[in-house]
């Protein structure tokens, strides 16, 4: 219980501020929780790990939750994961039940968030205990599995795999360290780049570029349309909210929260898959499926509990294996690195206080999200009306600060932001998937080290297949993930005739 002494007033204030800022980001269409975390990272540079984590976890929970506001009131999903919330939320608003729909969504979000926090608390240490016994071979195979899972769940298996490999390739640029089994020379770049890239690209400018600048360039391409112009917020009081709305929703809440948590554990799949799957399941099990999509509260319950279930789920592989579960946790990995903490199997055991503080932060952030949104929803709803010509310049400015300050003032990091912002924008146009690319970039360096160390230790490639029963199980899972994707492709082609 020593960790309790670290929980000061500032900790709770930062978590609350994080939630509030996150809700604003989530509520504005086009802006995501990932962007919120990436843009606010510079604020954590001057904080210690615990306080920095409080802010980031608040941003994460708030960012995921805020998307429900425009989804319900304006039929515009604030974040990709709130797409299914529009199906029933907006029809309820049109019936004059906007406030009721919002409160149903908020309570469901709280349940999903707390459910996933509980799963995280019990499951992550168990997984870490198993992972701690892994040798370099199994560690390499885990990363390989993460890349194949994320690629197989991409829109296109080939492009997903290619994107992941491109990320690995980008991660290998720089000096091939002797310590890691290399020759100490630079690689994958021209000689004139040595001054800038001997250490490779810094992680955070890359992430801020891909998730911050690239998003704004996409919006600029569309002309920075003010989605809210001419729209009116409707928070009429039709049928008032009552907790009776959840009377027959226990199974739905549990199932959808579980789906969200499970999907969150899969690397890079994202909240939209979680909410779509939970919504579809609720429709399949519903006694009145025809009501879904026409303003049924159970649709909102399924969607919102699933996408908040994602928060704890995505932290499980991050904290137990060092593999980010989604793009937001990928940015969190950068924040950990910044504080000198290596996430992975040893993280929980070696940093028990930090782990407990994280759990308190996650639960607290969910409670603050609930209180803020439940009691101040009328005021929060107004943030969706903030014009983009005010917000986007602020975000651009914060992106620059984040990139510049990460290495205590290196201008090349700012140019990295531009390179990856423009590169990410162009890559997305050509079908490159950003999530596998980012995961590949984050895990590429480690994958190489584990691969080389395995070969140094055992001297044969066959060790990757024969090292242990765990290695065989991992190969089976890799084959299954690829097989699943091929099966889906064949099924899709067959249904298209």
């Amino acid at each position: 219980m020593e960790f309790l002494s670290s929980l000061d007033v500032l900790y709770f204030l930062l978590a609350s501020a994080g939630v509030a800022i996150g809700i604003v980001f989530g509520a504005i269409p086009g802006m995501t929780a990932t962007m919120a975390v990436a843009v606010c990272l510079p604020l954590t540079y001057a904080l210690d790990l615990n306080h920095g984590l409080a802010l980031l976890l608040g941003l994460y929970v708030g960012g995921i939750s805020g998307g429900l506001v425009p989804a319900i009131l304006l039929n515009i999903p604030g974040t990709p994961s709130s797409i299914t919330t529009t199906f029933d939320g907006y029809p309820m608003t049109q019936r004059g039940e906007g406030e009721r729909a919002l409160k149903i969504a908020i309570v469901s979000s709280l349940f999903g968030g707390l459910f996933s926090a509980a799963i995280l608390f019990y499951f992550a240490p168990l997984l870490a205990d198993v992972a701690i016994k892994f040798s370099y071979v199994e560690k390499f195979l885990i990363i390989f599995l993460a890349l194949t899972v994320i690629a197989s769940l991409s829109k296109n298996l080939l492009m997903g795999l290619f994107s992941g490999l491109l990320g690995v390739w980008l991660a290998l640029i720089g000096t091939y360290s002797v310590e890691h089994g290399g020759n100490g020379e630079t690689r994958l770049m021209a000689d004139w780049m040595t001054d800038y890239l001997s250490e490779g690209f810094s992680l955070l400018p890359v992430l801020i570029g891909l998730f911050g600048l690239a998003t704004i360039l996409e919006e600029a391409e569309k002309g920075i349309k003010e989605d809210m112009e001419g729209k009116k917020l409707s928070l009429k009081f039709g049928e008032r909210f009552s907790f009776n709305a959840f009377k027959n929703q226990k199974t739905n809440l549990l199932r959808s929260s579980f789906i969200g948590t499970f999907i969150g554990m899969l690397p890079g799949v994202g909240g939209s898959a979680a909410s779509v799957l939970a919504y579809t399941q609720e429709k399949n099990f519903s006694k009145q499926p025809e009501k879904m999509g026409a303003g049924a509260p159970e649709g909102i319950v399924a969607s919102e509990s699933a996408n908040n279930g994602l928060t704890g789920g995505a932290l499980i592989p991050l904290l137990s294996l060092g593999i980010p579960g989604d793009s937001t946790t990928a940015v969190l990995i950068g924040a950990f690195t910044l504080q000198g903490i290596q996430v992975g199997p040893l993280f929980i055991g070696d940093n028990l206080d930090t782990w407990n503080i994280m759990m308190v932060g996650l639960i607290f952030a969910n409670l603050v999200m609930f209180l803020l949104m439940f009691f101040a929803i009328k005021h929060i709803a107004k943030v969706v009306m903030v014009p983009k010509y005010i917000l986007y310049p602020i975000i651009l400015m914060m992106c620059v600060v984040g990139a510049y300050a990460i290495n205590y003032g290196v201008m090349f990091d700012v140019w990295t932001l531009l390179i990856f912002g423009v590169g990410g924008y162009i890559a997305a146009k050509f079908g490159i998937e950003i999530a596998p690319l980012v995961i590949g970039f984050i895990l590429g360096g480690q994958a190489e080290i584990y691969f080389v160390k395995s070969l140094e230790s055992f001297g044969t490639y066959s060790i990757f297949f024969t090292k242990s029963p765990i290695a065989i199980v991992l190969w089976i899972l890799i084959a299954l993930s690829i097989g699943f994707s091929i099966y889906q492709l064949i099924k899709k082609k067959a249904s298209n005739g």
Partner: protein
Amino acid sequence: MLAIILATQTMPYWKAVQNGEKKLPFTEQPFDGFRFFGTLFLTIIYFLLMPEVGSAFPNTGYGFWFVSIPYMFFISLLYVHKRDKKHLTTLSLNALIAPSIAWYVLSQVFAITLP
């Protein structure tokens, strides 16, 4: 892998473009070149000027502060659709206040390095 992608994805895609069934990546939707290239142009100028101005005031963060104000103003001007008095006042105030707050909080309160 690139060869497989070219053979299985790019070639059929290119044929569909030639047949008029699909559009090229950058022509799928109306492209606002003014705002897109304007963003890039202003951002590059911003990045170039920041260290230059900053070197005149070392370790103060003034490079960031002084250059961010016009950058925010021009980029807001680029993004705004109605350029009337009300909108111009709002964006001018934002361009003045936001970088000032960011500079003060980050540089003075948190002692974070700024250009």
